């Protein structure tokens, strides 16, 4: 154990900020989370130097798993350059000397993300860490964690299904937009973090390990590779992802790269017109590059 070796001076920080005992504890929780897919493993979340709610749970996972030679990508809202992603990446660079960072999804071995799963399918050698504000999908129907634990143990999700049903009665539509409750490996229902519904099907039988870290709520859970992930739905009311068709029923395209099969961000141009663009910046860049090189070949 070299817990003290890097933490001698008042200003010197250990590799990965946390002391080695803390990292070991987190890795143990990760192993348990993988062994029981979808089960929320409690752990003694440490205070990080950024705000609770800014990704401290995800960051603790990243810092506990990171090794020298790791290639890390950090995104927020699909973007590498959003303020919080930059902040977390700089912190990782500062506290993990020797680790390299990238914006390319394909190059990363460890990806920490808030609110998105990258569009490019992940590979078996990659780990996705998602930041989680509310780890428990049952919190919308039961405020007491003590009671929720019993419901999870018994796979009693009836009140959640009733909530979906009430939505249909009232709106003829399930109104859960993001954080869509998803059943893992046929038992535990998870809150997949505030990813859009668009991203939920990509958890199902994914090649990569997905880890969920809730720092403030002190929970870690996992969707291991090649594991069933099924959004809650009814046989006559199927689960539906976000609809990006225009009034004429045509799929909108990214205004920048032209992609018609990615999650789009909507905003208003200076002229007041609605513009749509890929939410995943690396995906958009890659598509654009391919388009330009094709154009170059043609010329």
């Amino acid at each position, binding site marked *: 154990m070299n817990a003290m070796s890097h*933490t001698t001076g008042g200003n010197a920080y250990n590799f990965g900020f946390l002391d080695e*005992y803390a990292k070991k504890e987190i890795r143990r929780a990760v192993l348990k989370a993988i062994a029981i897919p979808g089960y929320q493993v*409690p752990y003694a979340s440490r205070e990080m130097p950024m705000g609770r709610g800014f990704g401290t749970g995800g960051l603790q996972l990243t810092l506990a798993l990171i090794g020298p030679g790791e290639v890390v990508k950090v995104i927020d809202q699909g973007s590498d350059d959003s303020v919080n992603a930059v902040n977390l990446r700089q912190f990782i660079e500062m506290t993990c000397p020797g680790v390299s960072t990238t914006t390319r999804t394909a190059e990363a071995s460890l990806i920490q993300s808030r609110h998105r799963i990258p569009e490019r399918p992940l590979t078996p050698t990659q780990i996705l860490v998602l930041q989680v504000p509310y780890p428990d999908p049952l919190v919308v129907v039961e405020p007491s964690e003590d009671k929720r634990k019993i419901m999870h143990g018994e796979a009693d999700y009836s009140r959640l299904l009733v909530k979906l049903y009430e939505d249909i009665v009232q709106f003829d539509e399930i109104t859960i937009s993001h954080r869509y409750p998803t059943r893992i490996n046929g038992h535990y229902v998870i809150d997949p973090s505030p990813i859009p519904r668009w991203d939920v099907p990509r958890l199902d039988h994914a090649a990569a390990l997905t880890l969920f870290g809730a720092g403030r709520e002190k929970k870690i859970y996992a969707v291991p590779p090649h594991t069933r992930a099924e959004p809650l739905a009814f046989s006559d009311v199927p689960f539906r992802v976000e609809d990006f068709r225009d009034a004429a029923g045509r799929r909108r395209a990214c205004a920048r790269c032209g992609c018609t099969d990615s999650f789009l*961000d909507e*905003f208003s141009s200076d002229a007041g017109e609605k513009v749509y663009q890929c939410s995943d910046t690396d995906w958009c860049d890659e598509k654009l590059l391919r388009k330009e090189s094709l154009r170059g070949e043609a010329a």
Partner: protein
Amino acid sequence: MSYVAIKGGGRAITGAAAVTEFLRTEQGLGNPAAEPLEIDTILHQLRHLVDRVVSEGGVYHPQFAALAVKQSLGDTLEAAFALRAWRSTRPRLTATPPLDTSRMRLIRRISSAFKEIPGGQMLGPTPDYALRLLRLELIDESPDAFRAVARDWLGSCPEAQLPDSFPKVLDALRAEGLLPPLPHPRPLSPGERGESSAFDITREPLVFPVPRSAALATMARAETGSLLAIAYSNMRGYGDVHPTVAELRVGYLPVLLPHPVTGELAEVGEVLMTECEVVAMYAATEPGGKPVFTVGYGACFGHNEVKAISMAILDRALQKGMQDGPANPSEDPEFVLLHVDGVDSMGFASHYKMPHYVTFQSDLDRLRTTQQKSGEPA
């Protein structure tokens, strides 16, 4: 076309840090007399700010607490946060055994239960009976006058010999059979061996139901205002503790640690603490048992009396809730313990300032779809 949505994050962060640092040092603009705030000045002249930060930070490091106050421009939530984050980098090497607070070197000690208590009441430093009038003469305090005050006060003090320890008021009540017996034997003294069995909230998550020691530890580093608000709800009628302060003491508690080789306890230093014990109306210990008063306990680092009293009241309320089921929010362990941490609550409140473009896009999709459907004939 360039990427519109989120760009330039790195530059924005650097800029925000620079302008914050400008605010901290702005006084020095064209003002040769301006001096940076010394850590020592904060430690002494803003001592209650430091008290609050060591308590909520959960680490007894007054110097770093003062540094945290300085770098956060006096924001106590931010300062406690920085201290906590620093604490995350330190391994836990050992734990103290339960420490005997009757051995506190007191600066203040009162009981509102009895006019006379063994050892006597000692008012000490408190604003409790002061008139809260603005002391306008402090606006232009001269350094000479400032130095004279402390010197004159010490000079006029009689050489009183205070005893090393004061008996606890609760002990007298306990001896009379008015309180339940102590669940554990008395704390250990120097030379004895022993290990703590207290729940360590820094190494174990709260999984409910939690032992009382976990509740006490959580409240000991809770945010003062949060604790006060929930305790106040109990005092006002959302609860029925009706406490009497049996004893409130403030002072320096000797800290004992086991010697790394022999295991014998040795004094390694002292920490400034506030401790409050409240007595509440009685309850039967068990069916058929003799009724006794009930006790609530509060203690925290630093001189923080409102916090210690709030904690003692909530300890009593939570014990009642755990025994009979919670009848009010202040009696519900999950409600109280998961909502009083300043680092957690301020962090989460702040996170709403972060971008939520993706989830809001998803919200828009649901609203538009349901709007569309509600417009259609059924």
